Structures are given as structure tokens and as C-alpha cells.
């Protein structure tokens, strides 16, 4: 059995904010809309309620985010993914849905520090003054798709694994000491 490895093997950078690649993190994409048992399925996996539009419900190491009107992102410890998929299949049996393990298709970064928002302000077309705690914002970081939310005095950023090195380069450059806004 091979060990799961994150895209950049936990790379980090200390600028005017701290950039850390975290993971591997368990992630499940759940596509479903208006299902009777959706709240039960999400509760069984993450222990949270179904997030409202553009919200992310966080409970310890588990979270559930609203990605689009028919898509949810479930975050959980990497080792729990297999069991979680079984739970979803059982809870949503007979209802039209799609649940896929995307843990190895993603890279996750933490941007931490008092000026963490400035690192992202330079890269994303997002109004950070209006970004609420518990809001999940999908947008782009320079040229690639990324999703961000505020968590514990910093931001968590999720992107595709294939562009992990590019995003690390962006964040590193954006956090260069002396380039504060």
C-alpha cells in the first residue's frame, strides 16, 4: 500500500504571511439537487447541516461547502473517504446523485497571518472587504480556478493538483516581504 502524498510534499514559505501546502486532505464532490435525504447524507459524513448558498459549514476536521446549486464539497480526513462514500451511497440509495473521491485531484493551501488577505487580494478578482466568515468563494487565482474561505485567522485555498506548483509560485511571489499593500 503506497502512502498518500500531497502535491508539493508540504512546501511552505514565510513572507509577510505564511504559505503552507497542507494535505493530503480527503475531499468528496457530491452532485445532488433537491434530494429528500441530502441533509441525512451530509450529516452522516461531515456532521454538519447542508450549507446555504455560498456557505461552508465547518465542524473540526470536517466541512461541507456549497459549490454551485447542485454541487457540494465534503472535506474530511483522508483515511475516512472510503467509508464516507459508502455512507453517502446508503443514505442516497435510489435518489439521483453522484459522489466521487477527488482527494488526489486537489491541492490545498493555508495562507496565514495578519495580512493574509493582502496575498490573495493581489491574485483574485474578489471583494475581500465583503467576504464574510463562513463564506466559500469560487473564483480564479491569476490564471487558474480556486476556491477560498476564511478559517482560523487565515484563508484556506483549494485548487487542482495539476496547478499546485503554479499556485505555490503565485502565493510565494505575492507574499514577498516589502510587497505589502
Amino acid at each position: 500500500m503506497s502512502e498518500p502524498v500531497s502535491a508539493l510534499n508540504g512546501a511552505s514559505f514565510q513572507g509577510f504571511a505564511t504559505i503552507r501546502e497542507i494535505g493530503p486532505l480527503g475531499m468528496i464532490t457530491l452532485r445532488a439537487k433537491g434530494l429528500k435525504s441530502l441533509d441525512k447524507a451530509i450529516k452522516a459524513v461531515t456532521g454538519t447541516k447542508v450549507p446555504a448558498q455560498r456557505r461552508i459549514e465547518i465542524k473540526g476536521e470536517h466541512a461541507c461547502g456549497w459549490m454551485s446549486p447542485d454541487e457540494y464539497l465534503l472535506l474530511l480526513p483522508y483515511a475516512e473517504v472510503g467509508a464516507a462514500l459508502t455512507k453517502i451511497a446508503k443514505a442516497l440509495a435510489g435518489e439521483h446523485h453522484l459522489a466521487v473521491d477527488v482527494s488526489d485531484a486537489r491541492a490545498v493551501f493555508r495562507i496565514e497571518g495578519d495580512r493574509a488577505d493582502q496575498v490573495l487580494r493581489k491574485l483574485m478578482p474578489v471583494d475581500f472587504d465583503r467576504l464574510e466568515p463562513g463564506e466559500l468563494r469560487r473564483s480564479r487565482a491569476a490564471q487558474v480556478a480556486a476556491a477560498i474561505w476564511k478559517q482560523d485567522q487565515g484563508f484556506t485555498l483549494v485548487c487542482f493538483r495539476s496547478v499546485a506548483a503554479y499556485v505555490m509560485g503565485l502565493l510565494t511571489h505575492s507574499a514577498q516581504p516589502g510587497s505589502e499593500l
Partner: protein
Amino acid sequence: MLTLECPCCGVMADETELSPGYEAHLKRFGPGSSPEEFEAYMFARKNPKGVHFERWRHTYGCGKWFLAARCTATLEVFGTYPAQVSEPPADIIAKIQARRPGWQPDGKAPK
């Protein structure tokens, strides 16, 4: 720079988050239609200077298609609305008429 509110996720999306889908409310002419009808469906576009209805996709956000009414001359945005309609909804038409008195949607006689 164009900023459109995505009706599917409520984000005020910057133009660079979106992909253009060109003219909205086209009626498809497929098998069984005359060559003239198919040609008009395939190639003929209104391309007006003024009020225009367009399709946009929130590519970097929720990924959904939606429709927008805007002015091609001034870039003024009158409103956005979900794509599951075959003609502009009444509230969008009212908003356009409030800003462009006398404007009428295609095929409607002026009152």
C-alpha cells in the same frame, strides 16, 4: 470592466471570471427546417448598438449559464436572469424601459 451578478450563486462576478456565450434567446432551426431558416439561425446575429441580451457562463465560479441584458454602447447593465426562459422576463424589460424610454423588445409593437 464589466461586472455581472450571477443569478445562480449571487456573486458580483468580474468579467474575467466569466465566459461569453454571445446572443441569447436564439430559436433553433434543425432538421426539417428550410435552408434559409437554418442559415439565419446559424449565422445571422443582431449585433445591435444599444440594448442587447447575452448568454454568459460563470466559468470560474459556480459554472452555470445565465443571461444578461446590457447596453453595448454604454456597457450599462440592466440586469441578469436565469437561463431557463425563452424571452426576457417582464421585470428586466421594465428596468430597460425605465432607462431607455420608448424601447420595445423585438416583435412587440410600440404602445
